[in-house]
Each structure stands twice: as C-alpha cells, then as structure tokens.
C-alpha cells in the first residue's frame, strides 16, 4: 500500500456512461490482486471532498500499469471522466483483501453486474479456468472490451445473450458439485448469489460495496453488518471480498434490507 501520483495513460469510453481508466503504477506499492481496489482523489478542491474507491480491472504484464472500469455516476466520476491522458492523479493502493484462489478441485464460477465488471474481469484473467457470467441491462450497455472467450452475457431484456440475471443463468446451468462462486455487483445480485451458494452448499467469495471515508480501516465508516449479529466488519480492510465455505458461513449479512 502506497500513496503516489499516478499518471493517466488513457481514459476512454467503453460503453454509454462507462469508461476505462489506465494509470501508471508504482511497483513499490505492491502488486494489486483481483478484488483489491485503489482510492483516487479526483480534484484538489473540497467539493467533491472524499477519495473514491475503484476496483482494479487489470494490470499490465510488467506491472507498470493498472486499469479500472468505472461508471459515470455523480460528481467525482464526472470529474474523473474529463481528465486527459498525461494528467496526474493522487492514488492510494492496493487496498483491501481480494478474491482467494479457488480451493483444490473447486470450479470457479464468476458473476458480475454493474460496477462489478472490472474486478471480475481481472479475476477471470488471473485464473487458468473459469466460467464467467456478466449481467447488463441491455445489449447497448455491453462494453467495447476484449471479453474472455466463452464468457456468458445476460441482459435484463434479452437483447443480447441470456435473458435474465447472472444468478438465474448460473442457477439453471451450473450443476451441483465442488464450486466456488465469485461475485461483484449491486446488493440485490450479491444477495441472490449468496442465497444460491448457500442452497447448493457452494463456497462463495463476494465483493461488497459500501460508502468509504478513509479506505484503510481507520474510520469505521464502511461498516457492514455481521451475519452473526455481533457488530460490524469493515468493507475496506476486512473486505471488500468476504468468503463462505461449507463449515463457515459468510461473515457479513448480504441481505440489503435496511432496518426500520
């Protein structure tokens, strides 16, 4: 983990409202793993104020460049989208705990939706074999990226590939057996994946999203409710990836309901 001035190598649109950022990487910071993230300060002014977390979507062979795929959502990502190649940006990383490797004999099933695309693509690239299932709203949202051969695309409206959610495709197409289900995406998707894994007694490693202030474990802002009710875990440093195995239930509660 290190803070340094990264150089923006490229910042190109990959789909409507989606861009891919490529940054120079300081090797002294350590080698990023799939599931880990970096935090960026997009502006020296105080609005927007906080750093923003983005998961790695890849790394160059020599380790000198990293990438992230991001959605333009609000103030920080709008500013980020305007930054030109050659400009410098304040980066901290790698942060958090990434995806564990599959256990012996475990089949790796990878599911991504929304902003989960980047980390899951990175994970797919790092594994010798896996089944990759990507969810999109519709065909036009498919990114102009070299997606791995054989990857399954799902769309909500059936305009490309499977009609439905990645969890539905997996539930219908993956036979029971020794599986580790990997996933990153919106909260309802994580809840569906966690439910599916529990039902099939699969191991699972899911990546959580939560608002962050420090990104390094100091502020307790990114708390996630523990599944055992005994308080909270930090998304940024206890996660963002949390795993469940046969004997060990997920440490965090993936159910997105909010108490009233």
């Amino acid at each position, binding site marked *: *983990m290190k803070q340094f001035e990264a150089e923006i190598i490229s910042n190109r649109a990959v789909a409507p409202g989606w861009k891919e950022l490529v940054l120079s990487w300081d090797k002294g910071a350590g080698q990023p793993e799939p599931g880990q993230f970096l935090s960026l300060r997009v502006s020296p002014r105080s609005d927007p104020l906080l750093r923003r977390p983005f998961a790695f979507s890849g790394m160059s062979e020599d380790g000198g460049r990293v990438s992230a795929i991001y959605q333009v959502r609000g103030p920080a990502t709008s500013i980020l989208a305007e930054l030109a190649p050659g400009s410098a940006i304040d980066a901290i990383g790698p942060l958090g705990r990434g995806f564990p490797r599959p256990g012996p004999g475990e089949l790796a099933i990878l599911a991504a939706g929304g902003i989960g695309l980047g980390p899951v693509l990175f994970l797919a690239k790092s594994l010798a074999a896996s089944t990759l299932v990507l969810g999109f709203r519709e065909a036009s949202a498919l990114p102009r990226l070299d997606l791995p051969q054989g990857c399954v695309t799902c769309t909500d409206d059936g305009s490309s590939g499977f009609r439905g959610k990645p969890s539905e495709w997996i539930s219908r197409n993956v036979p029971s057996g020794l599986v580790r289900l990997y996933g990153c995406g919106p909260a309802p998707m994580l809840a569906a994946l966690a439910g599916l894994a529990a039902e099939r007694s699969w191991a699972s490693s899911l990546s959580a999203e939560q*608002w962050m202030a420090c990104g390094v474990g*100091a*502020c*307790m802002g990114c708390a996630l409710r523990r599944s055992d009710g005994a308080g*909270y875990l930090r998304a940024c*440093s206890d996660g963002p990836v949390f795993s469940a195995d046969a004997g060990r239930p997920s440490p965090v509660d993936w159910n997105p309901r909010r108490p009233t």
Partner: protein
Amino acid sequence: MSADLSVRIGELVLPNPVGVASGTFGYGSEYEALVELGSLGALYTKAITLEPRPGNDVPRIVETPSGLLNSIGLANPGVEAFLTDKLPALLAYPCPVIVNVAGATEAEYLAVLQRIEATLGPQASGHPDGPGIVGYEVNVSCPNVKHGGLAFGTDPAQVERLTSSLRAVTKRCLIVKLTPNVADIGSIARAAEAGGADAVSCINTLVGMAIDVGQRRPRLATVTGGLSGPAILPVGVACVYKASRAVGIPVIGLGGIMGPEDALQYLLAGASAVQVGTGTFVDPTTPARVLAGIGSWMEANSVMRVADIRGMLR
C-alpha cells in the same frame, strides 16, 4: 538556529503542534503504511468506552458540500480489550499518544480513566516529552443519559463536575474536547478550566443531517450525524478564537484542516496546537504537509517558537 516547534500543555511537552484527531486515525496501525507516525505531534485514539460498543447501524457516512457527515457512534472494543489488544502497540509508537475517552454517565468516564491509570501506573516524574500514553482527551459531546440525552458538553455545570472528577484520578495531561453545538463556547471552556483541565480542544463535529430525496430516507441510519471537514473550518476557527480568549489554559484547534493555511488560521486565532481529522482521509500527507507549511511560514515571518504564533494576530 532552527525553529522551536514544541508545544507545552500543562506539564506535557509535545514535539510539534500537529496531531491527528480522534476517530480519524483508528489506533494508528491502520495508517502506518502511509503516515510516518514519528512525525506526529500527537496521536489521539478513537474514543474508548467502558464496555465494547459495536457502533451505530449503517450507513454511517455521507458526503455533503465540502463536508463529511458521520454517525460511526462510539464503535470501540471497550477499555479491557483496548488495554490488552491496542495498548502494547500504542506504547511502542514513536509519538505521544492521547487516549480519547467517552461515556454515557460520569461514572463510565471515570471507570475508563481509572482502569487505564491502573494499568499504566502513575506518570513518571519530569517532563514527559517522549512517546507513550501522555494524556486523555475527554469527549463531552456524548449524550448524558442521566440528563435527558443532551450532551454533557452543552452545560457548563456538567462539564466542570465531570472534569474535576477525572482530574482527581490522573496526573496525566487532561484535555476536554468541546462541542460547537452551543451558544457560548467560552462558558464551556471556562467550566473545563475550573474543573482542572490542562487544555481544551475544539471543535468536535456539528450536528447535521442529509436526506436521500429519491428514497425519502435519511442518508444515515441514525438520522442525524456529525459534520466535519472543510465546511466547518470557519466555525472551528471562531470557536478557538472565543475559547482562547475565555481561558488561560491552552486551546487545541481542529475542524476542517486540509493544509498549512488552515492550521495557521487556528494558531493565529489562539490555538497552541492543532489536529487533522477528515483531512487525513482526503490526503494522508496532510499532517506532514501542515507541519512543513507551519515551518515555512515561521521562517518567512521570522518566528522562532511555534508558541509565539498565537499572539501574532493583528
């Protein structure tokens, strides 16, 4: 001759005026890879309470214009776990450590302090200017459950009583951390001084609220939270200006410090030292940049001792 950056608070001498604020620096280890602990004037820990506390429900943070609204609550492992799990590392740090203390009743504050004092033993004699646990910062922004939930820190009488009962159990530096959510911060600062505090620090967060108008819900699970960051900088500077004119003891300034100019505003307003909170989240080099910038300003203004800055406002 090089400038004298040391800060004197009662018997205590801090190596430099730039500390990191309670709740924004964990117990130090979280930022060890990014911030050189040896360059900190003081490390203020996350609040410690008698019992472990899980903290508030989530979501706990939301960004507002130039501000951060949080409702972490007093999430901490409790004083016993603190002593076994956190204290050894804190004692080994190359910077002075000040333990932030909180409670729901006067008895709770007292029990925390007594428990820590019992473990540390009485303070070594002489000027404690080295590392180790050198003092306590009393967070009086906590609701007093015996007084209808209004914060201790909004009532001078409660502040004085709480301070004097804590004063009775420690010889270490005792700092009372004031809340800005009052009409007259000077009267609260005077109460802390009367109770025997060595210093006051201000400000804690302002009460704030944000609503998600799409969801029609408060953005924080606790509805209201505490506002920090640059948005509150002018409020903090005004509080320090007033508090430092109300008391004879040192005032430690914080709230919205993002760089040297902000810290110098606090010092010129009357603070003897400062703390960086939210500024560390935004840029972990902030404490170091602030210290370096104070040094440059002193050189440019031919000021030899950081303690002299507080008298320099025209």
